């Protein structure tokens, strides 16, 4: 199996160095419709992590065993979208049945996860960048990358929810109220994330 250090490094690199929102700029749109409450943002972040992990794994398997064997690469987008739609639908049904108390808060943002670019992007990236590695390790690695991307998204959601709450209490020039100031602060956070670039454990601890 893959050594622990390499797993950790892959995880950290997909969460911080290549943060899906602030560096790759995928999944920015939902920020503008972020829920006001921190608890709801957290719920949304964790749901995205789950959907990403499951959809990434299912998409990887489908890509590997059906699309690649039959030379149907170009169907990737359609297949992945179907997979995501089905998984989101399944989660909705399961939560409704087994966890009715949480259903109300979850059902408000679940549809938006279907059209969340980040989930589709993670599926596609997991298949395309790792398809030339050997089978077992690359499946494990792509799962680690998926979960790392998911936690990167969660981190971004938490950061933005916190910033939004702070912004509510400050006085902002009128044209900047609402979206512009949120985008500006996202830009500053993204600038800070550039500081992570080139980060590896070898450079940090000398191997």
């Amino acid at each position, binding site marked *: 199996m893959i050594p622990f250090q390499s797993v950790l490094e892959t995880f950290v690199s997909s969460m911080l160095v290549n943060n899906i929102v*602030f*560096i*790759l*700029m*995928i*999944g*920015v*749109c939902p920020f*503008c*419709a972020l829920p006001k409450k921190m608890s709801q943002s957290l719920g949304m972040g964790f749901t995205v992590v789950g959907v990403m992990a499951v959809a990434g794994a299912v998409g990887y398997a489908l890509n590997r065993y059906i699309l690649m064997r039959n030379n149907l690469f*170009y*169907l*990737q*987008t*359609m297949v992945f*979208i*179907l997979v995501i*739609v089905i998984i989101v639908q399944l989660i909705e049904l399961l939560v409704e049945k087994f966890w009715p108390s949480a259903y109300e808060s979850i059902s408000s943002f679940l*549809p938006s996860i*279907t*059209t*969340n*670019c980040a989930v*589709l*992007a993670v599926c*596609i*990236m997991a298949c395309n960048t790792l398809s030339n590695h050997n089978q077992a390790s690359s499946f494990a690695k792509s799962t680690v990358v998926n979960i790392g991307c998911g936690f990167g998204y969660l981190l971004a959601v938490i950061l933005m929810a916190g910033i939004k709450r702070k912004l509510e209490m400050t006085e902002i*020039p*009128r*044209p*900047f*109220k609402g*979206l*512009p*100031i949120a*985008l*500006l602060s*996202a*830009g*500053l956070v*993204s*600038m800070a*994330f*550039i500081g992570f670039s080139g980060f590896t454990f070898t450079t940090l601890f000398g191997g």
Partner: protein
Amino acid sequence: MKSDLKDWFVNKNPVFTMAMGLCPAIAVTTNLKNAAGMGFCTLCVLVASNATVSIARKWIHYKVRIPCYLLIISMWVTIADIILSANFPVLRQNLGIFIPLIAVNCIILNRSDSFASKNKLKDSIFDALSTGFGFFLVLAICGFIRELVGSNKILGLTSIGHFQGIQAFSYACGGFFCFALLFAALNAYRTAGKHQ
């Protein structure tokens, strides 16, 4: 014509009025060429999928409409992707993952769901054209600004002297800043219009 243009850019613009489609808008606008290519691709996919949805609107059941629209849109995206990789491989390489991501662009789904599913073919195509053109304009303007400020170039040609450009504008954060300033400028313009 002039008032139409203003309408598309200011009052009905999908990015500025609904804050939609921000991810491709921020990500690919590092230079004018990519931005315009992306805008044009989105425009084509938007028109094609709006037309398809409008034709097929009577056969799609209300409860499964979103997956159906997503499938139609992703079909057109796949076709666009194939055409791009055959004819413009460099552009496709530059846009990379953002081509398949057109399929989950909120603007296209929103137009399908709220307009094309209720209106006739001709109206849907016109709506798609105007929305897509607004999106194209925003991308082109932002791409122009970022290329000029970030690397002091216009369409790959150096514009002013030895100025190196502000690097940050070519990175992700530059996209956020550029859009924030555009939004703020538009807000100021709107409120100024109201006071008169």
